[in-house]
């Protein structure tokens, strides 16, 4: 019996094991050997990521409280890939004098949030879901406030904490209304009680989806995003915009398809509206940003709007397209953040105009950034094109032509501002461009992975087929 539990929960168990190991290292290892902890963690997490792809049967544990399947394992693996790249990118930052003291804590907190997301994705009832959500968000606030010497970082932590507390409250109120209707919190029991839709269900659903929208920073619940993204350390910002958003999108799609499947006619309009608002408003704000972190924050808001396209039409292609989109979004956004971080680590510069003439001094970094921007915008040879293409196809298949039309318009707008960054790097003249520098091996590896990924995931079609096969069996 123990073996069955271990095999079904292996991703969770091994992640917790790594986190505990880091903590034990922090407690026992001498300061002199502290440098070794980071590479060891990297290796362990890499093994963990690769093992996550090994197929195994799904199942339910703890009376249905914990449910896992091939599809859910895949979602976790996609997050793993992102976290692995982030870990690679964080090494240079962690080795700085200010952060080195608490480098292990950073890793522990990062792994805790990831554990929360795992449990959220694998939850079989609302209690587990909620606890997972809290584990994912409370350490995140601490990560946002990690730069204790910067008041902006503390501000980001507090803003995130208050917002996540508020959204948790709203979400819990929605859950309590579901419980009032059904008397159960298990996902597999709930649909039985929802079938003739009552106004109370609609009210609960609106509260519930608003709470989730806060976490995903969908418009009109996005106002915290820019400040938190700007104030947090850049590595945490990339974690926020990629991993946290991806996990929230995964859990939303799971819940909508598992629990609220029969109420499709009720929620598809909500998702439609949220999608249009998020894409458009996110884009309009991104146009006006001058700070590259804020710029990426707003562009990631509008990307979340695209994710919702996959939800309006309930079928396996939609979920496949979402997972595929998030995988590519992780690669492209982390590529962009990787460049921003490499530059900020060396020079501390974060404004878009600082990037003027970057190509002259740092051609490789500029090319990477350009690829990331192309992929985020969705220009054909990069993977970003294919991911958006599948999402649009899915929405069009459901007959949402207007939605697709708006999405295409938004893609064109986004193309404009993504190209602004490219223009700054390649065309705009600058008397004093950022000097030539060489990043450390970890950053370069991370950027290499993302660049290869941006090409390979798009062109190598078996990856899409692989995801598709898994989802079809879900």
């Amino acid at each position, binding site marked *: 019996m123990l073996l069955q539990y271990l095999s079904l929960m292996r991703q969770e168990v091994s992640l*917790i094991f790594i*986190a505990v190991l880091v*903590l034990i290292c922090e407690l026992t290892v001498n300061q002199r050997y502290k440098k070794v902890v980071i590479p060891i963690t990297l290796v362990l997490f890499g093994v963990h990521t690769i093992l996550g792809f090994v197929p195994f049967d799904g199942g339910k*544990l*703890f*009376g*249905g*409280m*914990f449910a896992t399947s091939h599809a859910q394992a895949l979602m976790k693996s996609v997050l793993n890939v992102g976290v692995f790249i982030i870990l690679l990118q964080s090494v240079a930052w962690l*080795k*700085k*004098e*200010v952060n080195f*003291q*608490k480098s292990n*804590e950073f890793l*522990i*907190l990062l792994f*805790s*949030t990831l*554990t*929360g997301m795992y*449990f959220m994705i694998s939850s079989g009832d609302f*209690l*587990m879901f909620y*606890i*997972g959500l*809290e*584990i994912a968000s*409370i*350490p995140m*606030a*601490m*990560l946002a*406030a*990690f730069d*204790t*010497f*910067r008041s902006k970082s503390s501000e980001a*932590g507090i803003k995130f904490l208050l917002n996540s507390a508020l959204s948790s409250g709203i979400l819990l109120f929605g859950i309590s*209304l579901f419980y*009032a*209707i059904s*008397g159960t919190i*298990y996902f597999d029991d709930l649909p039985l009680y929802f079938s003739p839709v*009552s*106004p*109370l269900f*609609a*009210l609960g659903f609106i509260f519930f989806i608003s709470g989730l929208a806060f976490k995903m920073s969908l418009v009109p619940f996005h106002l915290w995003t820019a400040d938190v993204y700007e104030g947090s350390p850049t590595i945490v910002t990339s974690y926020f915009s990629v991993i946290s958003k991806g996990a929230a999108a995964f859990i939303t799609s799971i819940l909508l398809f598992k629990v609220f499947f029969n109420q499709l006619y009720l929620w598809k309009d909500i998702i439609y509206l949220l999608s249009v608002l998020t894409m458009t408003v996110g884009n309009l704000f991104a146009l006006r940003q001058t700070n590259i972190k804020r710029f990426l924050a707003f562009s990631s808001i509008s990307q979340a709007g695209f994710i919702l396209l996959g939800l309006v039409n309930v079928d396996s292609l939609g979920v496949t397209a979402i997972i595929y989109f998030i995988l590519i979004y992780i690669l492209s956004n982390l590529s962009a953040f990787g460049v921003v971080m490499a530059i900020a*680590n*060396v020079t*501390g510069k974060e404004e878009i105009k600082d990037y003027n003439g970057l190509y002259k001094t740092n051609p490789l970094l500029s090319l990477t950034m350009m690829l990331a921007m192309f992929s985020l915008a969705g220009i054909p040879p990069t993977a970003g094109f294919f991911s958006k293409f599948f999402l649009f196809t899915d929405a069009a298949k459901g007959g949402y032509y207007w939605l697709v039309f708006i999405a295409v318009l938004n893609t064109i707008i986004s193309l404009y501002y993504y190209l602004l960054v490219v223009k700054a790097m390649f065309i705009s003249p600058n008397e004093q461009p950022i000097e030539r520098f060489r990043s450390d091996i970890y950053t370069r590896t991370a950027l290499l992975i993302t660049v290869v990924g941006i090409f390979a995931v798009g062109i190598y079609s078996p990856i899409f087929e692989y995801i598709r096969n898994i989802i079809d069996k879900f």
Partner: protein
Amino acid sequence: MEIAASKVIFYIIAAAILFFALLSVTSKRILRAATYLFIVLISTAALYFLLNYQFLGAVQIALYAGGIVVMIIFSILLTSHAGQKFEPVSRLKFFASLLAVLVGWALSLWVILSHPFVASSKEAVEVNMDSIGKALLSYDRNGYVLVFEVISILLLAAMIGAIVISKKQPGDGETNPDNSKTSK
């Protein structure tokens, strides 16, 4: 008679919760707001006792009234402006939020009141420590051992994070350390 009596007590407690909650959010001084919050939490515990949830009531008093309010007061006193009065809210904001609250409240109330709640067919069971303990450690349906274990990770992360953030580090409090602290 018995139902009527518990109803009367319920309404008195509920009125106290509402009243002090309102005072807590409208109070101009933050320490007073914390005190009102304390009364709200205690009244909530009273509500639990009324429902015969002794354990939950005890937890509410021990954790919320005993722990969290103390934390809140400490963190208020940590700031240098604990005695400061809040700025009055602008009239527009006041009326806008009042409108939002009233509409939301009325809508929720209307929906909840008009819902035909079906009385549960299950028999009411006495919730004693025995059943709580067994449910907490049970692997089966309606058992919570997974949540129980997972919460330890939440507590651990909260503890580590709080220590990391609150611990003084060399160089904290400098005005612009971003430039001076990089080792490169």
